[in-house]
């Protein structure tokens, strides 16, 4: 199909202003890839993808609406774009069609701040850390702190239902969201209304939350805030194995403890890149140990009660109290782990990614061990942590990396690792990929039950987006 490019360029320029439209290679190359490791690995062979035909930077929902009307009339695929930090190919163009990337980052204003209700109304293109800093300046915090904090935008978080490192206390980003403004494919701007809770039909914002831009472009949201804490408390417990640590954590949550952070991993003091220069190499025995890292905030009397409950449950299950230092150390380096993508681009034979799966408590120890074992057996390195703990279960975050004999074999190993992870996950009762979204990548790996749910998304999408313009190819659409 031939597309009248100059005609479309003219219309887009009218929609957002010529200064907010670009087809120059600087911009199209910059928007060609997100942080999906597989695509990065492919590109290091020199095959940098072509990128979108147009990048637009709308300044308001009305301009997004105009762009979507143009896209609909020419049936052009569109990607709503924030920080471009998707790790699953959710924000990169695919196939040969001419794409429009809608870069939302000009829509980065706080529209209203209701300090009485502790609710902020903010545009979706704001980068996470900027939003948090602006809230902090007024004594508030969003309580959403993923490792993508410095890169990702609010719109990206909402579209993938992101979970931050404080999710045990504050939930996923959807739990903070009281309402959204979104532009539907035909250009209609819809607002879901704000209420603390309601019983007037399904919560309609949930059709856009987690939809990864397949239903519409989220342009603003109302979010719950928290008071910026004056103090945080930390505790660490060392266990011989992972299961009793999980049990102690599960029982703590059941007792009503609401920790700021609760994770189980190797002792952070043993991490190579974080170790003191003069420290001895960790022994096998040390590496086999697991620590439960806890952080708290809130009124001190309440925190004291919470810490006492966790201490009792942990020590009764063989947990040795290590004091606050290791947990505090992890906190100090909490952003260090994320987004170290450069090695993937420069080391030809390296492969790496991050598997995240969710499960109920009963299935977690088994999944933890079988995942570790399966990766170990192939000589791949892993670092597994229990994260996003909640009443009924938690996530396993598993960073894996290895080096293959050739770039081609590295890609093969990468795919094999993912197939293996999916196999282990489904055999062990887990669900794959629930922190970063599905993008192009994960949707193909999920089990039949998830596929059925994604098929229903396609059904709904067909009605709202008959031309199929909204981020086609992600989430199986």
């Amino acid at each position: 199909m031939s597309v009248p490019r100059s005609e479309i360029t003219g219309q887009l320029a009218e929609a957002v202003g010529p200064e907010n439209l670009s087809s120059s290679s600087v911009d199209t190359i910059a928007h060609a890839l997100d942080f999906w490791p597989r695509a990065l690995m492919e590109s290091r062979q020199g095959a940098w993808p072509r990128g979108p035909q147009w990048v637009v930077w709308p300044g308001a929902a009305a301009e997004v609406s105009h762009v979507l009307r143009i896209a609909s009339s020419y049936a052009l695929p569109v990607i709503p774009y924030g920080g471009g930090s998707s790790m699953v190919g959710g924000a990169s163009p695919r196939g040969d069609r001419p794409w429009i990337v809608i870069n939302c980052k000009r829509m980065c204003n706080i529209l209203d701040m209701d300090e009485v209700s502790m609710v902020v109304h903010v545009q979706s293109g704001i980068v996470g850390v900027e939003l948090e800093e602006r809230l902090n300046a007024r004594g508030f915090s969003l309580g959403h702190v993923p490792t993508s904090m410095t890169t990702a935008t609010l719109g990206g978080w909402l579209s993938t239902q992101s979970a931050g490192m404080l999710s045990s206390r504050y939930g996923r980003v959807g739990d903070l969201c009281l309402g959204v403004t979104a532009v539907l494919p035909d250009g209609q701007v819809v607002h879901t209304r704000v209420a603390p809770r309601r019983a007037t039909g399904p919560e309609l914002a949930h059709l856009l939350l987690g939809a990864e831009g397949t239903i519409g472009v989220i342009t603003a949201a109302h979010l719950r805030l928290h008071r910026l804490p004056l103090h945080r408390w930390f505790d660490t417990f060392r266990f011989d194995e992972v299961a009793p640590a999980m049990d102690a954590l599960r029982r703590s949550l059941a007792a009503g403890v609401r920790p700021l952070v609760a994770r189980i991993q190797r002792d952070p003091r043993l991490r190579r890149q974080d170790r003191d220069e003069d420290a001895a190499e960790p022994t096998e025995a040390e590496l086999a140990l697991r620590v439960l890292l806890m952080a708290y905030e809130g009124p001190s009397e309440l925190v004291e009660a919470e810490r006492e409950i966790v201490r009792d449950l942990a020590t009764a299950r063989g947990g040795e109290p290590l004091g606050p230092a290791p947990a505090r150390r992890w906190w100090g380096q909490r952003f260090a782990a994320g987004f170290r993508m450069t090695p993937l681009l420069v080391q030809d034979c390296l492969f790496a990614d991050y598997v995240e799966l969710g499960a109920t408590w009963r299935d977690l120890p088994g999944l933890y061990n079988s995942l570790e074992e399966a990766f170990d057996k192939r000589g791949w390195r892993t670092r597994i942590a229990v994260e996003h703990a909640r009443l009924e279960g938690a996530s396993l975050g598993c960073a894996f990396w290895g080096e293959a004999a050739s770039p081609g074999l590295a890609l093969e190993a990468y795919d094999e690792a993912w197939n293996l992870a999916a196999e282990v996950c489904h055999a062990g009762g887990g669900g794959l990929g629930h922190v970063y979204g599905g993008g192009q990548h994960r949707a193909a790996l999920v089990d039949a039950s998830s596929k059925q749910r994604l098929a229903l998304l396609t059904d709904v999408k067909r009605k709202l987006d008959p031309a199929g313009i909204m981020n086609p190819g992600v989430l199986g659409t």
Partner: protein
Amino acid sequence: MTAPLTSADSRLAQLRDALPDLRVSSHVTDRIAYARDLWPGGQIENLGGKYAPEPPLCVVWPRDTAELVKIVEWAKTSGAVLVPFGAGSGVCGGTMAGTGSVIVDLKQLDRVTRIEPENNLVRAQAGIVGWHLEDRLNMEGLTLGHFPSSLMCSTLGGYLATRSAGQCSSLYGKIEDMAVSLEVVTGTGEVLETGRDMGGGLGPSWTQLFIGSEGSLGFVTEATLKVHPAPEHRVMRGYGFRRVSAGCEAIRRLMQAGLRPSVVRLYDEFDTVLARSSTEKGSEADTLLDAITGRVKGSGALPWLKRQALQVVLARPDLTNRMIEELAPRVSADGCLCIIGYEGDRRLVEAQAGLGHEELIRSGGKDLGEEPGWHWFKHRYAVSYKQSKMFTSGAFVDTMEVAATWDRLMDLYDSVRKAISPFAFVMAHFSHAYPEGCSIYFSFAGPATDPAASRQRYDRLWSKALAAATRAGGTISHHHGVGRSKAHFMTEEHGNSLRLLQTLKSTFDPASILNPGVLGIP
């Protein structure tokens, strides 16, 4: 009374043919009993003798999901309308038969399928009565934490259909906060598990999109819900606030300080009197009259006098409302009553009760001790079973539960109260508090001696009150749902985002066979 079965006979025969094993009743008693829920608008009609103006064709009782799928398949081909039915205690006309519709009573699906204490989860079928589910969990040392006052006359499926809230919602959340996955039979006959991937899964949350759909998108047949250890400790306490606005401000501070009380209730001036005197034995009419005639005038009124007095009071609700405003300080020396409770782990309860007490006193609250708290606790389910007594006393009663963020809450209170005042005697309490806002529960009573005139008055009251709520920036329902009674206000409620609901409807129920009319969608 009920229309005789004529042309409908053939459809009934078809149904029996298609599903010979299905339990079906077209007995007139069942068709009247299942014709509508407890929507007071319908109750007023009952007073006039119009018991089942649009009776269903029949009532069916599926025994499992497979049988329900077959019913949906049959409805798709025959064009029959299916209305889901739990315990029939809805108050918004969410389960109302239309002529020729088939009532699908889900109470045969009443099993607790699995209790998983090691995952803090329970799996139960939708037809189980709330009380039975809680009882079963209690035997394992667990609680769901969902305590609507209808607990004994409502089902899990009903809770999920309406986004129900219990009295401990500030701690345990509403039903949408408890559910992690649902099994649903959609209007296309597809069986869907909405959230099997624990913790999320990819794409939009179908769990959140089916909860609250009031049977318009599918039948919920089973649900997986979070459960908690049964509380080892509980404290209750009463506080008095000079004005209801001061009490609201105190609750806001409490919630925003990071405390999670299980019970938060603040009664306005008149509701305070009722709350303190309500018992299980006395009807609401008695209590209401005691409150006005007994307490205010200081005389003990006899029952026959009460009925007369009720009519006098309700004939001029605007005057009564004003009188109460004037008398408020005398009605209760302690001001507006606020009940705060905590439950759970002893250490958490003690720590929070201490912090909360300081906050409430600092905010101007007067400590009334434990007694008012335990009094409420003892009578917490009483109110749901008094409706019929009021109706037979010649009054209509209803409730309206709205919600808003804190910045709009007092405006919402004043606006709705003012809108109802000319039509009915009105009082309110604030409950279901969140860090960002709160719900307001209005109770009102108007005269119903002449059913036709009363119904008119009742409808006008609701239109004015709903308009006032949306104008003030509140939601028109916090936990009762929309049903048919508020259906005409869905555009005001949702604006153009209602289109998303219409899209869900056309996707999941393209033949429009599921409970048409609820939520304002055909």
